């Protein structure tokens, strides 16, 4: 009975050879007990009123004695809470997908960019492959690739990526000055396909307009045909029309524009249509003032501290989408790239803007996970009535 009352995580903690003298615990009491009648173990308890429980400290012996008291129902360890998720991850409701049990665990994602800082603690143990196509070595001597990789799959506490347990592959195709040739990017794409990754992030591009028939865009489409979800930046050449360049104009990729955390489209976010008249971008994601991993020795962005830096661009919006794709693939491994693209587009929140500015709207991780369209805006007051509105919300899956 005593064992049943002590949560297994706490029992393990107590049994550990390096167990602390005191443990932080939460004790749950029988429902009808007054606070004064609650048996205590340690000093200065914090009593909760919404639930019959108290938080305190106790030695292992005190915990065992508490557990035999009939007034005590359960004793848990008072575990540290991971604080303050990055604002943009919360905005697209990635934490709700994590709570549902999906963190991108083991999904192979390639960041084709300026490389990565493999010593950054937020990637520890998850970098499965690094390749260099620039001749500079695979380390990130710019900072962009590390920042992008952090948004996709960083496992920090405060600044956590969208798929914090995904496997990371990096192809360095952009040089230390942030530029590269289309052929270098194509080489990185082919390498990523050979590694059998499921998602590729391309936070890069050239100037528009384009029609998607160039060699880089068609390589992206060929990767999609091989079963890889490819997320591409719309580019920062906005706000003029047809400012999306290659490979953002590729037909089969998900092209991602940028908005702020309050869903205002970034002025720099490139606009469609493509030169052959197709609507682009496909969706927008947060890409303004995004704090993510900082590469050692690189000066990219506005440093927040030794490990993180802040930056803006469609480069920052795109890995939000790639991270969501990894979450969806963990939840439903059989989804094709086309289905993931459709899911992200069909469940995006309509911002009420022109399609060549917002695509289908701002994509939402949780709504995409549910696979249900965002609820339409509420009808104006007076029509068609509260009951109809409630029914509409229910039908829309809210």
């Amino acid at each position, binding site marked *: 009975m005593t064992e049943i009352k002590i949560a297994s995580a706490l029992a393990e903690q107590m049994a550990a050879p390096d167990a602390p003298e005191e443990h932080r615990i939460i004790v749950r009491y029988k429902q009808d007990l007054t606070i004064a009648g609650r048996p205590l173990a340690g000093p200065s308890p914090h009593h909760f009123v919404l639930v019959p429980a108290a938080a305190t400290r106790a030695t292992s012996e005190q915990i065992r004695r508490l557990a035999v008291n009939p007034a005590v129902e359960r004793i848990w360890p008072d575990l540290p809470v991971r604080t303050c998720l990055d604002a943009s991850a919360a905005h697209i409701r990635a934490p709700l997908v994590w709570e549902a049990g999906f963190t991108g665990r083991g999904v192979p994602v390639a960041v084709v*960019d*300026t490389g990565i800082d493999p010593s950054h603690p937020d990637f520890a143990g998850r970098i499965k492959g690094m390749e260099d196509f*620039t001749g*500079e070595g695979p380390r990130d001597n*710019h900072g*962009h690739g590390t*920042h992008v990789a952090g948004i996709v799959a960083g496992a920090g506490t405060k600044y956590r990526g969208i798929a914090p347990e995904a496997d990371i592959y990096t192809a360095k195709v*952009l*040089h*230390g*000055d*942030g*530029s*590269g*040739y*289309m*052929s270098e*990017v*194509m*080489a990185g*794409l*082919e390498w990523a*396909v050979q590694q059998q990754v499921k998602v590729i992030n391309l*936070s*890069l*591009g*050239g100037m528009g307009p384009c029609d998607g*028939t*160039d*060699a*880089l865009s*068609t*390589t992206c489409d*060929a*990767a999609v045909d*091989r079963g890889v979800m490819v997320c591409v*930046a719309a*580019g*920062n050449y906005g706000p003029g029309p047809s400012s999306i360049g*290659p*490979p953002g104009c590729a037909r089969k990729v998900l092209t991602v524009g940028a908005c702020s955390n309050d869903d205002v489209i970034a002025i*720099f976010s490139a606009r469609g249509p493509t030169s052959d008249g197709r609507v682009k971008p496909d969706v927008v994601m947060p890409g303004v003032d995004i704090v993510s991993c900082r590469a050692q020795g690189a000066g*990219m*962005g506005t440093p927040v501290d030794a490990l993180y830096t802040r*930056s*803006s*661009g*469609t*480069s*920052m919006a*795109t890995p939000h989408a790639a991270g969501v794709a990894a979450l969806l693939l963990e939840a439903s491994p059989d989804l094709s790239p086309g289905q993931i693209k459709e899911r992200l587009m069909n469940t995006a929140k309509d911002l009420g803007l022109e399609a060549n500015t917002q695509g289908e709207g701002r994509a939402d991780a949780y709504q995409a996970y549910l696979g249900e369209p965002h609820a339409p805006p509420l009808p104006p007051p007076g029509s068609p009535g509260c009951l109809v509105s409630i029914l509409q919300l229910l039908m829309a899956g809210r």
Partner: protein
Amino acid sequence: MRKIEAAFHKRLKECPDQTVRLLVRVTGDMSQATTRLTELGATVLRSFGLTNTVAVTCSGSTAAALLQEPWVQAIEEDRQVFAQSNGAEDRGSSQGGKHD
């Protein structure tokens, strides 16, 4: 598919001695294509199986001559791309080609 963009074709003809970076899309066997490209005076940098494309450097006149080859499907310039974060883009634009 157009074999070459008109503006790029004009540039090649105007600067026949200038070295250019090209992406050459070919039909048929890739290894035969790379051999032939070398014979024609191009330096093969990389070849891409996903799209049957070869990245080369060559003179403008060689590039123009390649257009006559029946196995050459299309030629385009191997253009630069840039990281799309605002600071990176600025740096990339101002220092484009520095690593060449």
